[in-house]
C-alpha cells in the first residue's frame, strides 16, 4: 500500500499538485448534478455535486492538504456556502474537511444518510444570523454616574475630599461601578433577546470575544421572517445607538444549530 503524499499549504507547492482529494463545503438535498462555477477553495476550483440517493455533497477538487484557517481560505469556504444557500437548505461542514476520493464522500452520505435527512427536514427554509454587541464602557460608566444616585454621591465626595480620606471611598466606588456594570450588561442582553425572540426560531449564546463584547449570539430564523428579524435588529440597535455597537451578520448556514457528530478518522 502506498503512503499518500500529504502536501501542507505552508510548504512551497510542487508544480501542479495532484487534485485527488475532495473538499466538502456542505450537504443539501438534490438528486441531479449541478455545477456552481469556479469558486472553490485553493484558487477557484470548480464546485460541483457528489450524490447518494436524494442527498448531494457540495465539493471541489483539492490536493490532500491541511488548510490553515486564513481569512482567504475561510472566505472561500463561506462564499461557496453562501452561493449554495441562496437556493438550498444546507448542512454546513466544518472548515477544512477534506476526503481522499469521491467514493469516500459517497460513503459519508451513505453512512450518515438518516441523520442528514432528519436535520435537512428540521432546517428546511431556516437561516442563521449572527449578532455581536459591543459596548462603549466609558460611555456606559458616564451614564451610570448620571443615573445612579449612590455612584454620583460617592464621586462628589471623592472630588471634594483630600487624598487621605478618599481611599475607601474610591474602593467603594470601584466596586459599586463594577456591580452596576454587571447589572446593566445583563439588562441589555436580556432586552436584546426579548426583542428578537418573537421573530426567531431559536437562539444560542457563544463566548464573547475580547473585552468590549457583551453579547455574541446566533439566531435561527425562518426565511419568511428575514425582513421582520432585520427590522427588529434595527429597532433595538437604534434604542442603544449611543452606548452599544451592533455587528449584525448573515444570512449564514445554520452552523450553530446543526450538531451531527460525524464518525471520521484520519485517512493516512
Amino acid at each position: 500500500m502506498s503512503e499518500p503524499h500529504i502536501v501542507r499549504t505552508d510548504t512551497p507547492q510542487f508544480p501542479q499538485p495532484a487534485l485527488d482529494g475532495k473538499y466538502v463545503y456542505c450537504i443539501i438535498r438534490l438528486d441531479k448534478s449541478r455545477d456552481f462555477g469556479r469558486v472553490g477553495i485553493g484558487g477557484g476550483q470548480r464546485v460541483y455535486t457528489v450524490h447518494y440517493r436524494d442527498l448531494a455533497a457540495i465539493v471541489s477538487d483539492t490536493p490532500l492538504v491541511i488548510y490553515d484557517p486564513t481569512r482567504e481560505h475561510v472566505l472561500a469556504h463561506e462564499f461557496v456556502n453562501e452561493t449554495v444557500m441562496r437556493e438550498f437548505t444546507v448542512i454546513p461542514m466544518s472548515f477544512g474537511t477534506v476526503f481522499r476520493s469521491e467514493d469516500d464522500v459517497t460513503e459519508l452520505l451513505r453512512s450518515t444518510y438518516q441523520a442528514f435527512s432528519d436535520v435537512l427536514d428540521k432546517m428546511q427554509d431556516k437561516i442563521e444570523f449572527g449578532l455581536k454587541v459591543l459596548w462603549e464602557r466609558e460611555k456606559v460608566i458616564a451614564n451610570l454616574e448620571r443615573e445612579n444616585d449612590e455612584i454620583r454621591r460617592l464621586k462628589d465626595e471623592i472630588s471634594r475630599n483630600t487624598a487621605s480620606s478618599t481611599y475607601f471611598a474610591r474602593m467603594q466606588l470601584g466596586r459599586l461601578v463594577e456591580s452596576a456594570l454587571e447589572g446593566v450588561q445583563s439588562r441589555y442582553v436580556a432586552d436584546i433577546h426579548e426583542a428578537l425572540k418573537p421573530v426567531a426560531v431559536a437562539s444560542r449564546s457563544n463566548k464573547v470575544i475580547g473585552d468590549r463584547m457583551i453579547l455574541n449570539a446566533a439566531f435561527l430564523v425562518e426565511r419568511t421572517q428575514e425582513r421582520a428579524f432585520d427590522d427588529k435588529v434595527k429597532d433595538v440597535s437604534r434604542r442603544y445607538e449611543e452606548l452599544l455597537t451592533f455587528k449584525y451578520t448573515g444570512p449564514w448556514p445554520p452552523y450553530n444549530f446543526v450538531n451531527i457528530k460525524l464518525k471520521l478518522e484520519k485517512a493516512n
Partner: protein
Amino acid sequence: MGLLTKLLFFPIAGPVAGIRWSLGKVQRVVEEELVDDAPVKQELMELQMLLELGDIDDAEYARREAVLMQRLREVREWRERLGMATAGGPVRVAREADDDE
C-alpha cells in the same frame, strides 16, 4: 536554635523551593500551551473582530494572521509528535460506522 535555623535557612530554603516548584509549573504550562490550539484560535477570532471594527487595516491583519498561523502549525506538529489527535488533513468515515449496517 530554632530561630537561628530559621534565620539562616529560611531565606535560602524558601526561594529555592519556590523556584523549583515554579519551574515545574512553568514546564507544565509550556507543554500545555504547545499542544493546545484553543488560545491561538481565540486570538484569531479577536484579530478578526479588530479588522471588522476597523481598529486594524488589512496589512496589519495579514501580518498578525501569519504569526498565528505559524503558531497553529507548531501546535499541530507538537501534537503529531506526541501522538495526539490533530484537526485537518484528509479524513474518511470511521470503519466502526459500518458495523451499524
